């Protein structure tokens, strides 16, 4: 009863229309190998579309840079303690007028061990952040969202906002070996949704989670701006790890530019 009511409230005709346009590659029960489920994705999209439109009032620029089909890595800066940035990029890509897609977000490794949350994230498109998963999804011509900063980005303190943390090199290796274009994204606004003043590290260790922030009890309605950059292509053989790091720095520089663009567009935090 509650579930039906929730579905009716969230899966509005416009959400149905969006979903109908997205190509589906699932089995007879609506699941894919990573546990993605269309029925859950509809509810997730319905919920986050409301937050996207009315709570975070997201503005997305450059969505035409996301190819309407074929493999692609969407690389973004990470922030906000609770990773709303992944969900908001997902909604932007799913509602892209230039070609909607169901993008998959690589999530932290501890999520599958958390009851309910692990399954829920899988069902709406989250996939454990293992390079093998990323490669296999790209080979199925999926769009994959990766935050190379990982928890270093999402868990950073408010005083470090908009300072890009170290990027892992893994995504560049995958982009080069799988010949996947990279669409860089600069996210502005998520830093202010849950400003963290401190991390209670001992409690985090005890709970086996990456961080426990001292922050507001619920996300603040900061205005979010997403800037999608032009696709970057990295091909050829990998000569050295140093060479890979150099290419990663190039991507980081582009993202830094997109963040600055977003910050200059923003008229106020809220």
């Amino acid at each position, binding site marked *: 009863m509650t579930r039906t009511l929730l579905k009716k409230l969230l899966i509005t005709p416009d959400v149905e229309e969006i979903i109908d346009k997205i190509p589906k590659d699932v*089995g*007879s*029960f609506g*699941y*894919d*190998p*990573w*546990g993605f*489920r269309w029925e859950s994705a509809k509810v997730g999209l319905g919920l986050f579309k409301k937050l996207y439109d009315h709570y975070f009032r997201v503005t997305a620029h450059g969505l035409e840079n996301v190819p309407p089909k074929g493999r692609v890595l969407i690389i973004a800066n990470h922030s906000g303690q609770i990773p709303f940035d992944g969900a908001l990029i997902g909604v932007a890509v799913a509602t892209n007028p230039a070609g909607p897609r169901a993008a998959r977000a690589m999530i932290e*490794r501890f999520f*599958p*061990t*958390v*009851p*309910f949350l*692990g*399954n829920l994230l*899988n069902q709406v498109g989250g*996939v*454990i952040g*293992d390079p*093998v*998963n990323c490669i*296999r999804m790209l080979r199925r011509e999926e769009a994959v969202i990766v935050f190379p900063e990982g928890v270093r980005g999402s868990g950073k303190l408010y005083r470090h906002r908009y300072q890009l943390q170290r990027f892992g090199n893994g995504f560049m290796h995958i982009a080069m070996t799988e010949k996947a274009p990279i669409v860089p994204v600069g996210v502005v606004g998520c830093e202010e949704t849950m400003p963290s003043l401190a991390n209670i590290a001992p409690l985090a260790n005890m709970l086996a989670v990456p961080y426990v922030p001292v922050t507001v009890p619920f996300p603040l309605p900061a205005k979010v701006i997403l800037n999608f950059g032009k696709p970057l292509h990295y091909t050829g053989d990998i000569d050295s790890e140093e060479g890979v790091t150099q290419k990663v720095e190039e991507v980081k520089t582009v993202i830094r530019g997109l963040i600055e663009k977003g910050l200059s567009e923003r008229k106020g935090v809220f």
Partner: protein
Amino acid sequence: MPRKKKSETSQAAEACACPVDAPEGEILVTGAAGVLAQETIAKLHPKYRIVAVDFRRAVEIGEDIPSYRIDFLKRGLEDIFRKHRIKAVIHLGRIGTNPQGGFLRYNANVIGTQKLFDLCAKYKVGQVIVLSSFFVYGANAYNPALLNEDTPLKASDLTLNLIDSVELENLSNIYMYKYPDLHMTILRPCNIAGPGVRNNIGRLLSMKVVPVLWGFNPVMQFIHVKDMAEAIMLAYEKKVPGVYNVAPEDWVAYKDVLRRSGIKGIPLPSIPPAFPRFISRALRWKAFPSYLINYFKYPTIIDGGKFARTFGFKPKRSLEEIFTHYREMKKRAFL
């Protein structure tokens, strides 16, 4: 004078006495009392001569199919190789759960298999097909999806009860490289289910009420027993040695499996992780044994693409067909 123990040879003679003159050779199928072996034999029999063996009983399969009850650990096993011209072995026989303990299961599954392989090498058997399982990969929270055949076998990290599955695989791999003339093919299928299947998942799907770990609903894969028999037949006929996952390109979550199979799921606390294992052991759940609990918690999704491409395999039966069988079975039992 101590009573003379009945020898394995006499047990063999006690079975369907069907001396066979088969110049083209015969296929030895182990685990003949199981439904998978019987389905496989039914597919092979019109074209090939079969010898059936099982450690449980001599099964009556057909008048022209010699059938033996044999313990692989006993010397009588060699009599079958002496008596018949075995050209291929399809090794499906396995002890799943042994109430007498893991040691006996290990002996039967691993040491017994080693004896069988030694005889295959000695009698120059030209092809061996071994049934393994996706269990060997282990159910781990950090598993990526679509595990391929090169993925490390982590099952033994999780529980000692699955060591024999991994050891059997390792043993098969050793023989594969040591005796290339055996042309060994190892098959790692996903959950095999369908009419008559009495493995863990078959038992579970036959029940009306089963546990569901609170907060976990892993995606699973199933193959119909008839499709698996078809896969074994293809492996025999195409004779391409190697290790292969066998699974359809279809996936379903555990709770959907239960719903479609007419089963009620009862939530079982999943925290701390030792709790459901303790309950399973205390209640002696055969269908939900403690050492398989992680397979009902985390997905172990295998990629069956290599087998499909190499052998031209495509399952004919849908997931819904599998679950309908179990649903209908319960309805019939109720009536």
